[in-house]
């Protein structure tokens, strides 16, 4: 999830406030596919990623493209607007009750010595690693991926060498959205969700991206690990409802010590 956000920010310098809501749509899509068609979310995440890719390209082409040159506060307003629309459409379509996707995997646990390992979480974790690796292979070893990095590095330079920068942006936004789509489907058996979940997901992913360093894929991945460990420890040692206290303390700590994030480049 955070990997997708950091890709969109890193390439276009647009902060996608609709990120969490896109993820919730990924979750509902997995929910519909599971209840109507009986497809397990560990399979349907591919479909969810593809659907969100299309949504991401549409949002980029139809909306974000028009305000790329606009000041940041206008971009924030637009993305908040997209978030509101997505959230309320979900509310209209699925109602306010919390939903959860059932998967046979989610009920399995392994006993490894003194530990209980939740199989669903293990699979999700494994797939997240695979997806992050696949994304970085794409960005570093294919021409299209290199173009995305070039456009992120210097959009004017990319235009000079004859790149259709808008098309590159649409691909990048689509891939960013596809990442959350996949993430949404993959956590849907673990995490109960309802339409307003989007906001807290957005906040969590911002937290992760800021800790890891804006625009860094590795940072997003490590930041995700740190935040989840901080929250789990917080839930164990304090009360589960106070777990965010830990992750946000971590955020403040990182901002004090390394304002650019763990793997972020310093603004020049």
């Amino acid at each position, binding site marked *: 999830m955070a990997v997708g956000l950091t890709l969109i920010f890193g390439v276009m310098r647009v902060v996608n406030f609709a990120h969490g809501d896109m993820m919730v749509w990924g979750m509902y899509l997995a929910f519909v596919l599971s209840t109507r068609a009986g497809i397990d979310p560990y399979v349907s995440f591919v479909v969810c990623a593809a659907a969100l890719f299309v949504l991401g390209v549409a949002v980029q082409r139809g909306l974000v493209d028009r305000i790329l040159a606009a000041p940041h506060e206008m971009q924030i307003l637009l993305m908040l607007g997209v978030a509101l629309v997505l959230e309320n459409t979900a509310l209209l379509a699925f109602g306010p009750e919390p939903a959860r996707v059932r998967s046979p995997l989610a009920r399995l646990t392994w006993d490894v010595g003194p530990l209980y390992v939740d199989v669903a979480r293990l699979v999700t974790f494994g797939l997240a690693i695979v997806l992050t690796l696949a994304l970085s292979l794409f960005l570093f070893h294919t021409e299209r991926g290199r173009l995305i*990095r070039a456009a992120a*590095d210097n959009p004017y330079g990319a235009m000079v*060498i004859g790149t259709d920068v808008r098309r590159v942006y649409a691909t990048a936004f689509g891939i960013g959205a596809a990442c959350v789509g996949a993430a949404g489907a993959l956590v849907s058996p673990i995490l109960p969700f309802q339409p307003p979940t989007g906001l807290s997901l957005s906040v969590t992913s911002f937290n992760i991206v800021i800790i890891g360093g804006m625009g860094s894929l590795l940072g997003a991945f490590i930041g995700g690990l740190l935040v989840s460990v901080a929250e789990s420890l917080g839930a164990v040692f304090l009360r589960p409802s106070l777990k965010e206290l830990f992750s946000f303390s971590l955020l403040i700590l990182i901002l004090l010590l390394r304002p650019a994030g763990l793997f972020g480049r310093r603004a020049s």
Partner: protein
Amino acid sequence: MLRLDAVEAGYGDVMAARAVSLEVRAGEIVALIGSNGAGKTTTLRAIAGLLPLRGGSVELEGRRLSGLGPAAVVAAGIAHVPEGRQLFPTMTVRENLELGARTAAGRARRAETLTRVFELFPRLAERLGQLAGTLSGGEQQMVAIGRALMARPRLLMLDEPSLGLAPVVVGAIFANLTAINRDGLTILLVEQNVLRALRCSHRAYVLENGTITLAGDSATLLADERIKRAYLGR
């Protein structure tokens, strides 16, 4: 080969190029000289499709380029080495060069062109894995020229290749331009360093306040009293 007819272009209310007409013939090095703010960069950007034309027309080998975007202009055979080089600083030298080969011709002859770029700039072969942002100014200029050559253009446009470089490095860059021209590539050069530009080019145009005020053979212009007084400080 390239013909500009009464080209007008500008930014906002400012019309930086007003009725610029010039011609570049195949095989030539043509210099476009003039002082700061005369409209040289604006003219190049208008040819490259990076700035919309407000009037006039641009033709390459009889084909109208006016109104085409930068991608179509590159595909038509014009490569642009912009002011400030505009490299991709966090990507390696090799990646920067290879990204230049985005045209059909560039793609087909990528390996061959890369070898030629290394012949021209042996320093780049040693720095292939280095990030472009960590190179010296002269090396960055070499990458920018190499990246443009990778597109296999028919016309190469350079905007202030000497800007911010040490005189020795500038000399080397201009020697390379002459070598590139001998390979058969036509060059349109924008330069504030008038002496260097006139010495390396066949013909030149002088741009003042957005219009061409003087044109002719570089050797003739080099001896012209007006040029001497205004640009060469003699």
